[in-house]
């Protein structure tokens, strides 16, 4: 019963910390925050290229494909340090979502063609899963891919596609067979976004921003060489990927940092001349979250420790996504509460310098967009279904 790291692991932690301190400087942070007026894509790509130059872009990959060869402890330390430093995670669609499918289920040609460009951040990927009629019930998807000689002809609509406007490639679940069990006729296709017949339509979200899209496919010809694995087996591959997506959704380190930021804000923001941090009701709201996060930190450590010992993650792992997202939303909520009415002013109408409360616009945006956290990656209600079935046997 202890959480001590070995001397080697502490040395590794110091190395990671030193690298982040040196490379993630104020300029990079400003660029990635979106405040510097630089497009998000170029800012994050430039940061990812720094990580690649260091060899740290893909800790989760096997070493033979460009992974770091780190132990699970080192990976855990790396992610924790990243979160504590306030560094945004890499864009997951290529590095964390499609790449594991390609190196696990793809053929040699596909690996050689796609993996290096993902490592180098040369290709931007997006995810084509959800459809207007297939959200939590993903297997209801109807986008079709009809086999026609050297090509599949794809027709249908994908929706909620994050950053499709930047994407070079999209990985899609498409229906290749009908009349069998719903999950059995689905295939995993890689589609070039420049293909004729693809239209990307922006969806503006409740934070007033554009990161989501609808992607329309009209008779899009996709070479059969872009099929992953076997036709009609895509569901199996996607399920493996979803499991990958769910681990690491607790984001404890990120939440710890946000909470520290919240406390500092609560010192600066006053009501009746008294700092909000001294307000007993606000204190109770903060500690409700802080205590939950203190527990979640250890839940995450428990999951990590059982995996590091070579075991499977225990039942406690299934709650990481639910609790992690609930906590981050709760922090967003308190940030917005601090922003109060000032937070309602939209950028462009009055600069934050003029208005004061420079965090307010960001607090509003994070709160509004943060509502998505309990919807994506398997909504929290679906996660509860999973726990009910897999853990409680209900």
């Amino acid at each position, binding site marked *: *019963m*202890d959480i001590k790291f070995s001397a080697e692991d502490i040395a590794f932690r110091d190395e990671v910390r030193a690298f982040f301190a040196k490379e993630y400087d104020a300029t990079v942070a400003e660029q990635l925050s979106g405040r510097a007026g630089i497009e998000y894509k170029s800012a994050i790509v430039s940061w990812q290229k720094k990580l690649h130059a260091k060899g740290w872009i893909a800790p989760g990959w096997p070493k033979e494909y460009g992974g770091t060869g780190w132990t699970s402890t080192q990976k855990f330390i790396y992610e924790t340090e990243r979160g504590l430093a306030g560094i945004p995670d890499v864009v997951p669609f290529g590095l964390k979502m499609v790449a594991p499918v390609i190196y696990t289920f793809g053929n040699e040609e596909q690996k050689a063609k796609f993996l290096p460009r993902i490592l180098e951040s040369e290709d931007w990927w997006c995810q084509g899963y959800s459809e207007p009629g297939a959200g939590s019930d993903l297997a209801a998807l109807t986008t079709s891919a009809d086999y026609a000689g050297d090509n599949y002809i794809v027709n249908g609509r994908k929706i909620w596609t994050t950053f499709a406007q930047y994407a070079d490639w999209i990985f899609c679940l498409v229906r290749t067979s009908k009349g069998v069990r719903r999950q059995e006729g689905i295939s995993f296709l890689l589609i070039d976004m420049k293909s004729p017949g693809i239209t990307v339509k922006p969806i503006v979200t409740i934070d007033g921003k554009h990161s989501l899209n609808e992607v329309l496919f009209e008779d899009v010809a996709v070479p059969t060489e872009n099929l992953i694995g076997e036709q009609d087996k895509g569901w199996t591959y996607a399920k493996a990927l979803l499991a990958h997506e769910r681990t690491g959704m607790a984001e404890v380190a990120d939440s710890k940092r946000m909470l520290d930021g919240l406390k500092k804000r609560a010192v600066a923001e006053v009501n009746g001349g008294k700092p909000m941090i*001294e307000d007993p009701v606000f*204190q109770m709201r903060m500690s409700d979250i802080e205590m939950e996060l203190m527990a979640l930190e250890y839940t995450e450590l428990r999951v990590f420790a059982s995996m590091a010992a070579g075991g499977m993650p225990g*039942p406690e792992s299934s709650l990481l996504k639910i609790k992690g997202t609930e906590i981050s939303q709760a922090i967003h909520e308190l940030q917005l509460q601090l922003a109060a009415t000032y937070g309602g002013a939209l950028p462009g109408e009055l600069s934050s310098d003029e208005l004061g409360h420079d965090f307010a616009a960001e607090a509003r945006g994070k709160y509004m967009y943060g509502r998505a956290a309990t919807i994506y990656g398997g909504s929290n209600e679906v996660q509860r279904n999973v726990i*009910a079935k897999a*853990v409680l046997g209900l």
Partner: protein
Amino acid sequence: MNFEFSEEQTMIKDSVTRFVREQYDFDTRRGIVESAEGINRDFWSMFAELGWLSVPFAEEYGGFGGNVVDIAVVMEELGKGIVVEPYASTVVVFGGLLSAATNQDLKASVIPTIIEGNCLGSFAYMEPQSRFEMTDVTTTAEAVEGGYTLNGVKTVVANGGTANSFIVSARTSGDQFDRSGISLFLVDSTAPGVEVKSYKMMDGQSAATVTFNSVSVGDAQMLNAVGEAMDLIDQVMPQILIGLSAEALGIMSTLNSLTVDYSKTRQQFGTPISSFQVLQHRMVDTFMACEQTKSMLYRGLCESKSVSEGETDDSALAKTVHALKATVARYGKTIGEEAIQLHGGIGMTDELNIGHYVKRLMMINTTFGDGDYHQKKFNQLSYMS
């Protein structure tokens, strides 16, 4: 890093688990609760033989030399059986205060009797007006030749009717709410002037109102330096709160598994009620509540170990124990209320064990400060520096 128990801890855990499973079924417990004394002294002797009563005590007194993890291991398993024998009050609280005391002669004479099973003890600190504030003490200890004279009333003293000995907090100087000026005395329950009125508590345990009418105690009965009781109490309190929280965790996990099992067998509308999504999600929430409580307990254990091994100061631990007690209060309430609700009408009956687990959780909640009390303490440490 690991969250495993050591081989010794696993052995003691298994031995308590086996006792609860094989010898402490709910009917047995009911019989004990309804008996005159409210405890089974044969079981207590067995606890002594099995070494459970020696767990936290130093080897020089014949103890096992265990740490807070060992205490938590025992307490969690006792919680699963809602064991009413006064382990917490005698070994964890009374024994914990003695272990931390500086009066070596007193320790050497009393601790071995606890380990042998011959001493039931209790900490008499609560007064009719003091609620959760340990520093609110009106019981007086007036200095006289060779010792002190105690006067005052302590109320809801855990296990007060069966205790042989009390550790009594009394004011040797200062005003009612002063932190300093409180001293701790070991007082025999049969000493002249000690009046004990015992009663049952809702959780099946017993307590007493203990009145001290000009009770004489010698200097040698004082646990540590005069007026410095609070330093000693603060030193031991993390271990006490962790022990009670471990007991609560054992109760919470038991309530959850009883409820899940029941939902799979209870048929309504022609199907087990476990098939209803609204109930599934509520059971998932209580599952998560239990896991989060366990994580907070483990946090307390890891930080306690690190403090006792001299690796860190106790600032993190101080926050964590408040957070732990507040978490136990919040999630204990959730789990208890959900267990009754999901059982439906049968959950309302005295005959079923569910309500009895819930009532013990309720008493743990108020013991040594309820959830709100500890959350406010947490807030002071976190936001008022």
